[in-house]
């Protein structure tokens, strides 16, 4: 017999809050829905919505009374709509952090602050480099160009994984969500997890030598060209201006 839906517990915040939510749900034996981006009625039942299959699809998961929902702070803009829906349905959305503390594992030996070089989510102009740049040296050229232009330089996850850039430059689901006025992507395929962060840019221009690259389905302007040739031409023109 299903319980009447009265209460859901919501953890909304960064990684620390999300971990606290997961640990809380596991300790209490509750069902926990992570990465929720909204609530929706379907087939007469309340569902939690999240992205599935590397964000290619939306999935609606049926909710039960007392379930735990976790919302990433990057998706905070969904919160208002979720709260309104809960109120309308007479459901109490309890703040999970009022029920538990931040999760702190034992045995802490040392803490060191990570110095963030830049805040990509706040940048107005972004040059975004992907594996299509071919080498670390070419990514560094893009970084140097961005600096000369007063732009920020971001990268795709494989670029960070290859050690061409630090992880704090990653744009996408596992990095920053852009809010830039302009983002120019060099040699980026446009995989769904990257686009989750890149499509936040108001104007996304993609340079890719493959006319069938996925990014051309999701950007505002597309240029089918060799990104290294464009990079070289940009460097030369900037050089001439100085």
């Amino acid at each position, binding site marked *: 017999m299903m319980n009447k839906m009265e209460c859901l517990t919501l953890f909304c915040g960064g990684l620390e809050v999300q971990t606290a939510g997961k640990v809380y749900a596991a300790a209490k034996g509750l069902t926990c829905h992570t990465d929720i981006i909204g609530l929706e009625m379907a087939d007469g039942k309340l569902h939690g919505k999240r992205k599935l299959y*590397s964000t290619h699809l939306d999935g609606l998961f049926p909710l039960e009374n007392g379930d735990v929902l976790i919302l990433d702070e990057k998706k905070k803009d969904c919160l208002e709509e979720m709260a309104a829906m809960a109120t309308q349905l007479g459901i109490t959305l309890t703040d999970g952090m009022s029920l538990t503390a931040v999760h702190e594992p034992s045995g802490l*030996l040392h803490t*060191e*602050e990570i110095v963030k070089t830049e805040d990509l989510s706040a940048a107005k102009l972004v040059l975004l480099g992907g594996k299509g740049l071919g080498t670390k040296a070419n990514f560094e050229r893009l970084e140097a160009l961005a600096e000369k232009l007063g732009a920020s330089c971001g990268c795709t996850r494989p670029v960070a994984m290859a050690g061409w850039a630090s992880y704090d430059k990653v744009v996408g689901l*596992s990095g920053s969500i852009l809010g830039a006025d302009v983002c120019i992507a060099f040699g980026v395929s446009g995989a769904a997890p990257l686009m989750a962060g890149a499509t936040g840019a108001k104007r996304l*221009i993609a340079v890719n030598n493959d006319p069938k690259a996925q990014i051309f389905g999701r950007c505002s302007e*597309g240029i089918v060209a060799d990104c290294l040739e464009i990079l070289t031409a*940009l460097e030369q023109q900037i050089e001439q201006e100085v």
Partner: protein
Amino acid sequence: MKIGVCFKIVPDYETLLAEEWENPNQLDFTYAKKMYGCFDEAALEMGLRMADSLKAAGQTAETVAVTCGAPEGAVSESLLRALFAAGYDDVVLLPACESFVSRNTAKSLASYFTEHPVDLILTGRMVGPGDSGMVPAYLAGELGAELYPEAVSASWNDAESRAEITCKEAGFLKQYAVSSGAVCTVGDAEASYLRLFPLKARMEAKKRVFSEYEPEKADFAGEEPILRMEKTEAECSFLEYKSAEETAGFLLGVLKGETE
């Protein structure tokens, strides 16, 4: 010291045809390229690095990689065998659980680790975007073990005789002496890929036998989600390409706010 690493082999969704997503109730992933879940791959490498640092200090190290089925046609014997070739002492196969009920997967893994205890369990933060990322927390809960989130590296400190991990949390790197039997999730690790190995090791791996384990039945109920294709927002207009110089001029104009 015995190190257990939980991993999953998944289809690389980026290798599917775009049309595949148009009919979400008849998804066919069998033709997709297969890969280790990307954070799981980092966990697999971290397990081996931990073993390396133990051996370098003259300690014994045993590594076991454990997977719960191969869902959605993602069976890949070569990826499983690669784990032997890379240095895993044992590769254990558990039957698959329903895709969307992470508590069942965690329960199966917990059942294995209860019968075959290890000193440290590593697992990816999540398999991929769209996965719940709940298995590590439920697994730690089932085992009554501590959960260390977002490990970026792990090593053996011989002077102190303890395993240490460094985790990346909310703008800080935190180093911990890990408690015995703990579950650590691996995030943006220092080494993201499983190490390379010579052909000889791959040939040797062909002779190895996977272990199989039948876990205690886990039967948390979970309804299948309703699947829908995401809507794409932008409509791309292609700019005619004449020369790199002209394109660069256009891009500079846009960046300076001079070109519409």
